């Protein structure tokens, strides 16, 4: 299968999943039930930013299906492949939004799920100043918990905000990586679709700090590419769905670095199987240069440890 066919397949899977989740939710709550993420002024941020439309009810959400369908055009070229990636991102947002219907809070510790506007606003300044030099989205599963911890801690020590999706969360817990916004390690959720919460983070950054008009998709993609220094590490076996979500990341300007055998795309989809080099490869791929003065001390030293609380038993 060609790389683009894998993406199209993943996007169609996302579309099917999205349709069935939405149908189920409507069956349960009715079409007039409200849809929203907690603590945001941007409705369903991905759909809002891409189309300029605010989604209020499950009935509105049915309209979003058409948006996803229109983005999946199975022609063998980059433009259509990237659009299909965006379709997957929209589908993921619809699925995640359904989880919140009925005022439920579907995520529990340590996962955070949807990231509220206030957090984005508070992270805006350090992102602009370069205090947070990048945002890593680590998705999937490393071969061992040690590998996972090594990678996460390496990012952490460089001040990079790390978000985790999938089994890597358990691996982080297992190796006692300190997590939480104050440590700049944020577990999003176990489902692949929870990656949408970091996508909507980047998109809201564009709306808030870039003053991008909702509906101006080309400007939005330009802003995220040029100004949001995010990248993706896709670890472990890659399903079509994950590859398709990766195409969504690439559409936003975020390179994907994986430890799996895939057809590479220069600067955008890179294979790095050596865990000792994964961080370096990722930073170079996103053009993140970190000026650090290494201080030879026996503990980690980085802004990420600023909010650390030292408990009694530590």
């Amino acid at each position, binding site marked *: 299968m060609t790389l683009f066919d894998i993406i199209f397949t993943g996007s169609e899977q996302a579309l099917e999943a999205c349709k069935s989740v939405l149908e189920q939710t409507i069956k349960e709550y009715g079409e007039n039930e409200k849809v929203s993420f907690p603590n945001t002024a941007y409705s369903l941020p991905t759909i809002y930013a891409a189309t300029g439309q605010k989604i209020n009810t499950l009935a509105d959400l049915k309209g979003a299906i058409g948006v996803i369908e229109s983005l999946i055009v199975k022609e063998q070229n980059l*433009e259509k492949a990237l659009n299909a990636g965006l379709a997957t991102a929209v589908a993921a947002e619809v699925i995640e939004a359904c989880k919140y219907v009925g005022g439920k809070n579907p995520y529990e510790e340590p996962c955070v799920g949807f990231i509220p506007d206030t957090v984005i606003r508070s992270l805006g300044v350090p992102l602009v100043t370069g205090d947070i030099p990048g945002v890593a989205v680590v998705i999937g599963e490393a071969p061992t918990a040690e590998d996972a911890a090594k990678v996460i801690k390496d990012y952490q020590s460089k001040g990079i905000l790390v978000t985790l999706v999938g089994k890597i969360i358990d691996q982080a817990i297992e190796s006692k990586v300190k997590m939480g916004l104050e440590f700049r390690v944020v577990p999003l959720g176990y489902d692949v679709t929870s990656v949408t919460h970091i996508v909507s983070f980047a998109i809201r950054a564009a709306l808030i700090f870039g003053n991008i008009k909702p509906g101006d998709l080309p400007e939005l993609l330009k802003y995220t590419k040029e100004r949001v220094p995010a990248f993706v590490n896709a670890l472990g076996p890659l399903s079509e769905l994950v590859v398709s979500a990766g195409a969504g990341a690439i559409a936003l300007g975020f390179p994907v670095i994986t430890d799996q055998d895939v*057809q590479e795309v220069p600067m955008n989809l890179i294979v790095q199987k050596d865990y000792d080099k994964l961080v370096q490869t990722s930073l170079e791929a996103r053009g993140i240069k970190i000026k650090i003065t290494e201080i030879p001390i026996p503990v980690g030293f980085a802004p990420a440890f600023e909010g650390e609380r030292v408990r009694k038993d530590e």
Partner: protein
Amino acid sequence: MSCDFECLSCDAANYKLMEKARNEKIETVWDRAEAMQPQCGFGEMGLCCTNCAMGPCRIVKVSEDGPKKGICGADEDTIASRNLARSIAAGSSAHSDHGRDIAHALYHAAKNPESGYKVKNHKKLISLAKEWGIDTENQDIKDIAANVAKTALEEFGKPFGNLRFIQRAPEDRKKIWNKMNVTPRAIDRDIVEVLHSTHIGCDADYRNIMTTAIRAALSDGWGGSMIGTELSDILFGVPEPHEIEANLGVLKEDEVNLVIHGHEPTLSEAILIAVNDPELIELAKKQGAEGINLVGMCCTGNEIAMRHGIPMAGNFFQQELAIVTGAVDAMVVDVQCIMPALSQVAKCYHTKLITTSPKAKIPGAIHMQFNEEEAIESAKRIVKEAVMNFKNRQGNIFIPQEKSKGFVGYSNEAIINALDKVTNSTAHPSGTVKPLADAIKSGVLRGAVAIVGCNNHKVLHDKGHVELAKELIKNDVLVVTTGCGAYACIKAGLMSKEARGLCGKGLATVCELVNIPPVLHMGSCVDISRILLLLSELAKFMNVDIKDLPVAGAAPEWMSEKALSIGTYVVASGVYTMLGVAPQVTGSDNLTRFLTNDVKDIYGGYFDIESDPKEAAKKIISCIEEKRKILSI
């Protein structure tokens, strides 16, 4: 003239000069083409034979009762294939003799400091010396250069073995050539064999005649042309990307305009040094000029544009119009594609047409022989002639303001350098074609097409090149170009960064990341050997044969025998090749079927003919997509 200028050319600079030529009663190529109509059908179909004094013979196809055989008994297949084979041999000989001259120049650079040539690229010299098994350890660079030059010269007439550069082709390709017995042996020998076997009473089997012709063509692409390119790079430097100006607007009203036209960089490089000589510049100023403006035309123009950023004044069909401006003080020419009509046009103005090669003299022109043994001195004498002619300018001078900018200088070395910028230093090797292979395999680029060749009155000037290139880049197909196709593309703005706006998303992304225009200027017609090497590298990297790659060649406005040789070696190297003008073979159904069909099963490449650029693009793209399907990419 029966119709408007827009139906003759798609270059606005030309309209004004065609108007001026008409007003001043100057005959141009378009007038002569019109006067020639209708052209002879026997010649057009390849059915006229003049190979012996029993002839001329012709085969009549249009009626039942005409002769179906020549006097010797040669039928349409024999006659058409002999004619084609001789044309291919002529094309191969033109390129190869060019290559021989460069090898001689390299030899003089090494042996004779008087020549004024110096070896510029030691790295490439040493790497070629090593490839050829020439001792480089503790050797003087001049001795290495002389040995490389001598070895190159031996390629033309060595008694045994095969051409050295054949080793650069992928293994599967070499196997096909060996099996078909077309592996070139020695360049001159392979060409001579065509002339021999097409003599009366010799080879009468069209397939066998084509085998001999294909061998002669391969001895061009993988021999003469490749020697020409490689040694030119060694002698004059490997081209690197830079921005230049193109079209007739590069002529300057207040400077001595010297147009260098022809093919061999041995002359143009020496002229370039001479025009920068302070004494000659001073002399120009004494004549009332601001300076000396050197501009290039056709392939010698491509050579100095690629290496030194000299403006590209115009392509094959613009050579007369350049003189019609009235601002050309000298047009200095060497060999190939120089219209003899120039001397007539030059006579109507003050322009001095200066021939320089003993191989190409033109009645009415001034002949100032250029000697490689004392290149710079010869060049200075020629430039002085141009400078002294500035004051003779008279009457109606008109330089059209049309000119455009673009990036040129994409040698394989430059392309790989550019590709290195998109590798990840911790994840990828550098110095390879991997990023190009990845872009193609992933589908971001659908494929690559080389648009090469000439101008021909049978196709609207430049439109064949430009429209085809635009259609291809719109569909994420990277275009590389050489020769007069390169002029058409740069004049149309396709070598500028802005041209990314005309590309599909995939190609636009590649152009942005690698920082290249969507149409890459790879040089002169001998530099098509660069394309062969790039394809070989790509094929080897992807572990396939050249015939498996999603690539194609196109010569939308071809006219010369050199183009026939090029097309033939490209097809025999495994590449689907689109011609915008039908070759003179259509009188033989068997030969036509051989070229457009049978060769596919043998070599993988084959000829196709389509004069409409949009239709040609469709066919090329469908061929590329078909190859992708076979490769499952």
